[in-house]
């Protein structure tokens, strides 16, 4: 079984992906489920539109799409209300991208949204590896402040933050690593150091394609049992689906 922890659907400015396109790609590579997040402009400003879209598509395709909602923290109380609305409508996690949403990952402006995710025991997926606003150690600080919330680190610090990963992230146990974009040797090293139950397979589709990302996982984690944990079990556990 394979679950992609990181995709985007909808009509964006810089990239778009229809549900049918994603499903076709998933089927071709035997991907059973995918976390679906809103696209760029919906992460930035049109939060409700993006949330409604992923929620509607997840309802249309039960067992295939796992909807993550977003809210731009600069909307303040409105952001909190929007996230609560989306969770009530079925959102299974929170997606944040501080690069697109214009805040620094460790700043207190985002605390109210993390508190909402924590209240509902939902994982928080965050983009990382953009300097100044989305650095791994900023996420580590945020994760230490909210130890009961599980965070998925988009791109696992790739490209330029490899130096920070093992010394700065290993001991922050509520941070999990998305494999998208990162190279096979780094993924293999993090799997060895932190354990496969700290890694989640992701593609950032449509940024990357399944055949190449899956080939990469085979190179990164040759052990089939460990790889299977990364390909599905870690994200399912974070979603509360009780996988051993």
């Amino acid at each position: 079984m394979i679950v992609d922890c990181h995709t985007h659907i909808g009509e964006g400015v810089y990239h778009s992906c229809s549900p049918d396109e994603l499903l076709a790609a998933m089927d071709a590579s035997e991907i059973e489920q995918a976390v679906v997040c809103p696209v760029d402009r919906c992460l930035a400003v049109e939060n409700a539109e993006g949330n409604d879209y992923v929620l509607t598509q997840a309802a249309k395709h039960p067992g295939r799409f796992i909807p993550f909602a977003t809210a731009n923290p600069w909307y303040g109380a409105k952001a909190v209300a929007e996230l609560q609305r989306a969770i009530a409508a079925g959102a299974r996690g929170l997606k944040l991208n501080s690069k697109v949403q214009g805040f620094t990952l460790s700043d207190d402006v985002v605390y109210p949204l993390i508190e909402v995710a924590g209240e509902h025991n939902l994982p928080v997926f965050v983009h990382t590896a953009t300097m100044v606003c989305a650095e791994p150690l900023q996420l580590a600080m945020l994760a230490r402040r909210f130890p009961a919330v599980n965070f998925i680190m988009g791109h696992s610090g790739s490209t330029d933050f490899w130096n920070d990963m093992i010394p700065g992230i290993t001991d922050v146990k509520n941070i999990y690593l998305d494999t998208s974009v990162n190279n096979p040797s780094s993924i293999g090293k993090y799997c060895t150091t932190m354990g496969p139950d700290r890694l989640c397979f992701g593609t950032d589709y449509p940024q990357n394609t399944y055949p190449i990302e899956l080939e990469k996982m085979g190179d990164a984690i040759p052990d089939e049992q460990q790889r299977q944990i990364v390909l599905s079990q870690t994200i399912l556990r974070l979603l509360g689906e009780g996988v051993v």
Partner: protein
Amino acid sequence: MVIDCHVHPPIPISAGVDEGRSLMEQFLDVMTAEGVDGSAGSLSAPLYSDCYTHREHNDFLAAISQGFEGRFWPMCVVNPREETAADEVRRCYEMLGIKALKLHPWLQGCSCSDEYNDPVYEVCAELGIPITFHDGSPPYSSTLQCADVTRRFPEVTVVLGHAGLNDQWRQARDIACEWPNIYLTMCGPTMLAMQSIVDSVPAERIMYGSDFGWGAGGTGLIRYRLHKVEALEMDEQTRELVLSGNALRLFGGQA
């Protein structure tokens, strides 16, 4: 044919020339097995700020590259902060036959915008030596900082070694469309980003690279980056230029 224009043969100078040449052969054979016919690149060690033996490393790379002409094109490395850096680039070109320069401003601790680089850039302009920069990493080697060298030194060909990575690829794409003497290496951006680059930038200035040999990376890195480029939608002429033609022209001296 496939030419990888961004590699780092993982061969320590302590190996000595004979062993080094044997390791170079193994390195190239591994690439051949992955479908890569030739490559261009530098050693890794002189790209770190604690290297004080660039001349020795350049001599060593030239020596272990002998016999692999047509399969490997070496890039010299200098520390631009050293007063002798420009002379060393000239020596590499004239005495060692190394006709490309690699700089990693971030790891070398040398801002590529600082004027202490200028003598190096002037020699490269005079001799027609292309400079491959690690790019995409502020504040010493952001994509536009590296690209700006061609504005100040229009005779210098700048190769952006990572085409902006994940955050600066749009800047790499746009500056390569604006200025003529910039090449982009498809080595790091996502497939969607690389498709946008291929759709926008003149095909004559896009190349494939893997960064193979850097760190402890295995052959998976060759496959990961090569298969991404091979999967891009492009016509056959563009494909040939990206995968080999441009690198052969720039590094291999083929017209």
